[in-house]
């Protein structure tokens, strides 16, 4: 009997998991479906789920109207650049916090996290003015820097957690073996932390890719990434849901594919050390 109960519970759990998964995924699914409808069907009441005339017209219009590749390229540069730069800054920082902690290390970590609690709009003016002064408004360089700074606390925290799992004796052994600090980080720490660094890279790439506040406020034309591409379709001259959906689908497709292929890495990275 006990076995039957377990089986029943298993079915309920599986169904519940699928239900919640679908609930979370539904907005994205709906966006993708809408992108294949005509504008009229997109706003039809009651909504049409699947029985509509599938069309690629929205994609054709979007491709014709905007230079998708330019937005895509900006997104790649900004998300990739800010993530790589963030890792370069965060590895030494996380190293020092994990392996030579001081009395204040915990405070610094919490303080860094606290900057994430401030609404971004609170520092929009100062940053905007600094960007004008430095002449980096609407440049990819400017966005790489600002997104790197925004995500740095998370990168440092994640790396710190991974580094803490690495036994300090191995780094001490490297020191005894004659490695300089640079060699110790390069040849011993980094290779050992590869899974952690990879999932940090991935998560922050996704965060930077989807970041919409700074990318919308600090760009106009030249550095505008895919978020700006989507925003340009939530148009003031009336709602074109189907085209907006097509633009959104095109914007999230690359990151969705990346996430799909690296989901194993991502999950194991995010739950790393959870059982220890």
């Amino acid at each position, binding site marked *: 009997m006990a076995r039957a109960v377990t089986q029943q519970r298993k079915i309920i759990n599986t169904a519940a998991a699928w239900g919640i998964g679908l609930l979370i995924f539904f907005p994205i699914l709906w966006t993708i479906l809408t992108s294949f409808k005509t504008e009229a069907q997109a706003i039809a009441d009651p909504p049409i789920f699947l029985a509509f005339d599938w069309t690629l017209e929205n994609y054709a219009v979007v491709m014709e109207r905007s230079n998708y590749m330019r937005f895509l390229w900006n997104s790649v540069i900004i998300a990739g650049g800010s993530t790589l730069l963030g890792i370069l800054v965060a590895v030494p920082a996380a190293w020092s916090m994990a392996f030579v902690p001081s009395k204040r290390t915990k405070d610094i970590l919490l303080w860094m996290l606290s900057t994430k609690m401030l609404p971004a709009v609170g520092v929009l003016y100062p940053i905007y003015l600094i960007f004008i002064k430095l002449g980096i408004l609407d440049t990819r360089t400017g966005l790489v820097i600002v997104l790197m700074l925004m995500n740095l606390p998370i990168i440092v925290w994640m790396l710190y957690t991974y580094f803490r799992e690495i*036994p300090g004796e*191995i780094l*001490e*052994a490297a*020191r*005894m*073996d*004659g490695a*300089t600090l640079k060699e110790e980080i390069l040849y011993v720490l980094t290779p*050992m932390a590869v899974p952690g660094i990879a999932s940090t890279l991935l998560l922050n790439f996704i965060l930077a890719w989807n970041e919409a506040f700074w990318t919308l406020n600090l760009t106009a034309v030249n550095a505008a990434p895919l978020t700006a591409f989507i925003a340009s379709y939530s148009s003031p001259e009336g709602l074109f849901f189907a085209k907006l959906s097509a633009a959104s689908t095109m914007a999230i497709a690359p990151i969705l594919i990346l996430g799909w292929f690296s989901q194993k890495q991502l999950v194991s990275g995010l739950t790393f050390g959870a059982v220890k």
Partner: protein
Amino acid sequence: MGQIKLNQVTKRFGEVEVIPPLDLTIEDGEFTVFVGPSGCGKSTLLRLIAGLEDITTGHIEIDGNDATNVPPAKRGLAMVFQSYALYPHMSVRKNIAFPMKMAGIDEAEQNRRIDSAAKALNLTDYLDRRPGQLSGGQRQRVAIGRAIVREPAAFLFDEPLSNLDAALRVGMRLEISELHERLKTTMIYVTHDQVEAMTMADKIVVLRAGIVEQVGSPLELYHTPRNEFVAGFIGSPKMNLIKGAEAEKHGAATIGIRPEHTDVSKTEGMWKGVVGVAEHLGSDTFIHVHETGLGDLVTVRITGDIQAKHGDTIYLTPQMDKLHKFDAQGLRIG
């Protein structure tokens, strides 16, 4: 050359003084063992010598040069850690090559040294494996190999055998002793196991709470312990320490007699007692005797197997020339 000299070395962690001022000289080529109960500061002392911890005050000299502020990489010492501390992402060959790569030794010489170390340590068949695919004993050999190829001024061992099972430990103990015989390099070995200390050391440094209680050869410590602590720590089973009236008869606050220096009889002797537990090892018999009127349980060790069981009456007679006497401060008399 590998003489190591500590001059008035101290170490504090915040307000806690782990090592009070300490002087110690380790001669070139000597096998020195730091031994003491856990928390006595022996590992800290080793880490100070290695340079992995900064000393608070004092000086460390290696080969006559002041090494106090020299980083660990530049001290010319090699260390073997309790957890082996191998690089898990590198093959055995790369692990052993790492210190040579850091030192910029050319590849032909690297390979020559790796091959000779692998041969000496029976690792030739495992050079392409990762540490994760090796047993504990093999991992420890790789760690030793990594230390040997550097041709260091001295080897530092931090409880290298504690993670191994008993049988393997005896084997590795012999291997390390043989290595020392062959290389004649200074070795400093930290352990809490006094058997390891007694069997391997040229010189034992007994530590308690960061203080050196006694420095000497294993047999010096065994025959003439400077105080009650050393007397109780060195030797297995432990020396019997007897206080009170019986000690006063000998003009001491405490007298000590080792289990192997007590004669046993069923009919007559100095102290009468009752057998509590008799442990038969075949080669020896340990008898724990109580109700002797001496306070604590008295342990005796008899060569061979003798018939003694719980509740038997037994008479003990210490060998007078092997009796240790200590004053009220616990220091040796005579």
